[in-house]
């Protein structure tokens, strides 16, 4: 079914129609058109080989830019998730200590390489850094709920991001294959022309 719809794409006069190609774009990333036949593709675009290759190369550059951006976002999220998990761990430890009724002694970093000791007795509430220079006090239960929600959101965002990256890589692969095929078609055409010219000279 997919190849049939791709054929209708190349026979129509538009570069990418929503009904014909599998997906036209995903969250702002344009889909690469799959080329069934190089000749049809070139006449459809109404470009000669070099312009077509230039167009495809430009597309590849655009894809690269988007890929950099998405990879950076992915790295940020992948760093954020263990952070949130550590916060959840601390809140859980505080709650456990509260049950036992003991104070929690901890060594914390005051400055690089300098630590100080703290004894935490009141464990009913924690302060959470929300970003933008804002810190709010929550009860341990509320804090756990909020941190859990943040963790789930971060994981969901990461999944969407990974799917975006996969879509992007597919489009890059399709475009690279198209570049190779257009180039080879051109070489093939030149050979045919040379052979025809040689045959014409001989006759």
């Amino acid at each position: 079914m997919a190849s049939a719809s791709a054929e209708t794409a190349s026979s129509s006069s538009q570069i990418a129609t929503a009904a014909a190609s599998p997906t036209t774009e995903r969250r702002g990333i344009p889909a690469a058109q799959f080329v069934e036949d190089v000749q049809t593709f070139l006449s459809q675009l109404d470009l000669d080989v070099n312009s077509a290759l230039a167009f495809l190369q430009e597309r590849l550059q655009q894809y690269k830019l988007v890929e950099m951006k998405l990879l950076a976002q992915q790295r940020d999220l992948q760093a954020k998730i263990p952070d949130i998990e550590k916060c959840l761990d601390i809140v859980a430890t505080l709650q456990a200590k509260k049950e036992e009724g003991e104070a929690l002694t901890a060594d914390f970093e005051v400055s690089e390489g300098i630590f100080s000791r703290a004894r935490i007795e009141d464990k009913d509430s924690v302060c959470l850094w929300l970003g933008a220079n804002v810190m709010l006090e929550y009860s341990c239960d509320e804090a756990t709920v909020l941190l859990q929600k943040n963790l789930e959101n971060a994981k969901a965002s990461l999944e969407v991001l990974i799917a975006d990256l996969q879509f992007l890589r597919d489009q890059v692969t399709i475009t690279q294959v198209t570049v190779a095929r257009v180039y080879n078609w051109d070489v093939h055409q030149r050979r045919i022309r040379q052979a025809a010219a040689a045959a014409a000279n001989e006759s």
Partner: protein
Amino acid sequence: MQHEQAEKSDTVVTWEDQQNINKFSKLNNRFHELEDEIKFAKETNDNLEDAGNELILTDEDIVRFQIGEVFAHVPREEVEIRIEEMKEVNSKTLEKLEKEKETVLAQMNELKKILYGKFRDSINLEED
């Protein structure tokens, strides 16, 4: 980062071929990601082992155990239990990653057979 090149001189490339190539590319990326993740999991495993060994050697009753950014004073038995739990979780993760890596490799080999079968020398699916 393209390690596969496709030069198709006279063979026709169908949408199915393209999808196979795309799938191979995605699997290859996932394979490299898995290798990194497995390396990290193995390092964590070693660190936990070392921590466990240090714990046995020390004769202090209160151990400074890192939770988040602070080092909490935790009794030794509790630290032992925690480290054991972390080792369990980590080895399960490592096992899962190794299994996924095997599946990915198997799928990649399948696709290699199909693609080399159709394109022979016109395609290169090896690492550079």
